[in-house]
């Protein structure tokens, strides 16, 4: 209780500006003590000191923190008149967020970690949007402050920092020999889930409502990066102008068939689409051959056809997507309510706390984009999409800048997962594609998915540091 009280007090007593300066000073001081001797040694080889290197991260964190502070105040101000008065506990999400950023920046400075500082800044922006959206949707359990669900963001950040530090200085290459293990692990998890999982809303969950299949997003990328790096010569071989090297790709195709069967049995079509897109784009990246894109297009068409004709689950979703007005109070309800909310929001949005995003079923997780659209308007949505695009651009730049092919493919794969996930979510909410039940990275509520995104980012940061 005491610790809890202290934390919000710290965040608010000192005004935002002061707070941020404190945040930057303390880790810097810690770091500076250790840094001085090394700087003289390696000063010639490293033109930029760690403090300068991470300065942009600090500045981004500062602005993001200030924004979330203001956003929280606006949300508190928009509460209904008969709501109980504002208490320390209302600042729990804000404090958790600020603490996470402070921890991240401090630890990275302490360890002189040279992972990408812009990517973390973008993460802070998106996670800040998420914190505000979740505060708005009251997903934090303010009655039980110690509910683990309240600390998903700090947990994710800690895991991300640990992953990044563990794999830094080229140690991510240790993942390369684990490609086969990852592949087996992915199949094992799916099989286990089929055996012991429970069905809910058409998908399978492990006991406790967890979705361990999320981890596949990382395992499969590791497997693909490892496999493609090993076979890179034959994959790049252009002895045949059109056809791919079947002999090399046969095991991959076999494995993918198995995976597809398991995912279809699980009815996790969203994850299947993500992973398959990643497969195609990674093949394309590794080989530099556009033919893969063509094959992928054909396969996607065939798969869509089969889905529509043989899976009534997929058929229902497709119908709800094609003509939601034919069943407005049933299948079309969720997406039409989301669009109604966005229409009510218009260009500038209804403002913090002024809309009714609760009308949309599962607004806090899958349909969080509709919440942003309703309360922040179209402009808010454009900002969020631009932030995501910056994130992906940065991610692909990192992939390019990395010297070794494994790291490059690993980074590209992880970014692609996040990009496809973001696209499927946003396009689903806006009725451009059928709803696939996928969360929005860093913003949606959702334990497993959020943690997976953070771990992916940790790996990405480790790769971005290079082998130095």
């Amino acid at each position: 209780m005491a610790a809890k009280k202290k934390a919000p007090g710290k965040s608010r007593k000192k005004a935002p500006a002061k707070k941020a300066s404190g945040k930057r000073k303390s880790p810097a001081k810690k770091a500076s003590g250790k840094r001085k001797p090394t700087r003289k040694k390696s000063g010639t080889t490293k033109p930029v000191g760690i403090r300068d290197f991470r300065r942009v991260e600090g500045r981004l964190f500062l602005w993001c923190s200030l924004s979330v502070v203001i956003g929280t105040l606006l949300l508190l101000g928009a509460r209904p008149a008969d709501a109980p008065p504002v208490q320390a506990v209302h600042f729990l999400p804000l404090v958790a967020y600020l603490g996470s950023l402070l921890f991240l920046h401090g630890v990275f400075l302490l360890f002189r970690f040279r992972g990408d500082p812009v990517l973390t800044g973008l993460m802070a922006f998106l996670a800040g949007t998420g914190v505000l959206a979740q505060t708005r949707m009251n997903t934090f359990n303010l009655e039980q402050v110690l509910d683990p669900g309240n600390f998903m963001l700090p947990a994710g950040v800690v895991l991300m920092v640990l992953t990044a530090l563990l794999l830094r200085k080229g140690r991510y290459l240790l993942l390369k020999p684990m490609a086969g293990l990852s592949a087996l692990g992915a199949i094992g998890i799916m099989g286990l889930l089929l055996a012991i999982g429970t069905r809910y809303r058409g998908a399978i969950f492990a006991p406790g409502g967890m979705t361990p299949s999320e981890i596949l997003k990382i395992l499969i990328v590791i497997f693909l990066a490892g496999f493609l790096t090993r076979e890179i010569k034959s994959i790049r071989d252009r002895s045949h102008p059109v056809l791919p090297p079947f002999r090399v790709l046969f095991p991959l195709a076999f494995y993918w068939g198995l995976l597809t069967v398991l995912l279809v049995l699980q009815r996790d079509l969203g994850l299947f689409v993500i992973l398959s897109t990643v497969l195609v784009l990674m093949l394309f990246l590794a080989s530099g051959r556009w033919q893969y894109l063509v094959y992928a297009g054909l396969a996607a068409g065939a798969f869509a056809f089969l889905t529509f004709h043989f899976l009534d689950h997929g058929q229902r979703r497709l119908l709800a997507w094609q003509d939601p007005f034919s069943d407005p109070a049933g299948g079309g309800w969720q997406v039409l309510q989301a669009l109604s909310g966005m229409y009510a929001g218009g260009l500038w949005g209804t403002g913090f706390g002024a809309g009714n995003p609760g009308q949309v079923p599962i607004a806090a997780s899958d349909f969080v984009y509709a919440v942003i659209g309703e309360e922040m308007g179209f402009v808010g949505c454009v900002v969020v999409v631009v932030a995501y695009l910056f994130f992906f651009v940065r991610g692909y730049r990192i992939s390019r800048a990395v010297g070794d092919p494994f790291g490059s493919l690993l980074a590209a794969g992880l970014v692609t997962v996040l990009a496809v996930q973001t696209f499927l979510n946003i396009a689903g909410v806006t009725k451009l594609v059928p709803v696939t039940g996928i969360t929005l990275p860093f913003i949606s509520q959702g334990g497993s998915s959020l943690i997976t995104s953070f771990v992916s980012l940790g790996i990405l940061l480790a790769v971005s540091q290079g082998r130095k």
Partner: protein
Amino acid sequence: MTPIFEILNTILSHPSWPHLALGLRILLGVMVVRVLWLVFRHRLSGLGKHAKAPFTSGVILAMFVGLFSIVLVHQASWQLFGLSRPKFVAFMQKYDRRQFNPAHSISRGKILDRKQRVIAYSLKKGERVTRHYRLGARREEGEMCCHIVGYAHPRFGMAGLEGAAHVKLIGGGLNSLKEWQSLGRKIIHRADAIEGEDLVLTLDIDLQNVAYRALKGRRGAAILMDVSDGALLAIASAPTFNPNRMASEMSAGEPGSPYLNRATQGLYPPGSTYKVVVAAGALAQGLNRVIDCPAEGYTTSAIYPRIRDHEYYQAQRSGGTWNGHGAIDLTPALVKSSNVYFAKLGVALGHPAMLSAAEAFGLNDAVPIYASAADTLRAAPSPYPDLNTDDLYGLAQVSIGQGRLVVTPLQMCMVAAAIANDGVLVQPRIDRDQATKTIRRSMSVGHAQALGVMMRKVVSEGTARRMADIGFLSAGKTGTAQNPHGEAHGWYIGFAPYEHPVVAVCVLIENGGFGSSSALPVARDLFKEAHRLGYLGE
């Protein structure tokens, strides 16, 4: 610790907080832009040399940028230009509970009668727009047109013309660039004065009122229609409901099915009124023959009960005897409404001729009363029964408007109108601005006039003599349709004035008994009022 929260709570509940909040929102916007700008400026920093930039990741990036752009454009088509999607606006008005959704502040246009008298209108109170149905002073008068006009209610949805003409009423049909520009301005300023178009009907409230009052307390339908252009002057159904009080109406249940528009959706055996269709078929086949109509009636097989004339039953009731009509031809048969004659005639015509006679008048078709690009209001089709070729008794029953034949009152009104209109079948319409549409020629001019003469005789010396004293000449046919739900349904179809027909009428009274005593008086009231209003000429 607590003083801080006290201060904070004071600030948040202070009257000037909204102004401060607006300032903070602007500040937040500035900071967000600042973050994105910082990221953009550092887009290349810290990555070292990335000289080798394979085209592949560029392709993938371009793909994602393109995809997300499409998403945003698509999103804008809903979020900013949702008004151009009529179904979407309808969904929001129906199902959206968001108080400030602009869709709720769209004022529906008025619904007016042909003399610009208001039938339905919208009232704006604050943000919400409510719909009212009122004619004259009393709210009860809203019941007068409740079936054809229908209702638009945020909880119970839409029905009737309110549903079919929804897009027009909310102004959803944007055609010109100018309209789009004004829409754009409204979106940017979030203006709430979006008003729809008015819908002018062909109805005349005075005639509608006569029909409504005549049907009050009974179950049935009454239609008055212009024979040459299909304009519906009155179309009433009873019992009615009050569209101003949907919530209490809905909770009251549905005794007597008040929501059924009997005029367009109710299916009833047409009884003797259908004999004019059979007569038209006989004329078309050149089958105006003399048939013997004995008192003992007619049947196609001994296993079926005999079809007899009503005079037989009358005589039986009064204890007398009746010798039958004897050998008569079509005119006296129609004037006396001889069941035996028409049963025999129908069987003589046969299945294909009977079917084509029915379809010539529009049976089996769903007649559109109001049509727009977005939606259509249709009458239920009157299905001609699918009889086996060897089912002659079924055919005999259909020939006298009984058996498996059921029709809508609007269908029978169209039959009367086609005869009055020299044999040309016109599509009924309710929108004043919709063009007249001819469906087909049902019969030749000569046959139509011959049939008109017969129907005139029905009024002057037949079963509809009560219609004779209205001050001008008219023609018609009564009907008394047996049905399994109790007393017979009373029917009357007709047209007036006889010399130059202007209007056709159809009245149905459910379980009203003889058509001449139940339905005919309603038709007479309608004719008289139409005459008083000057629709029938001098």
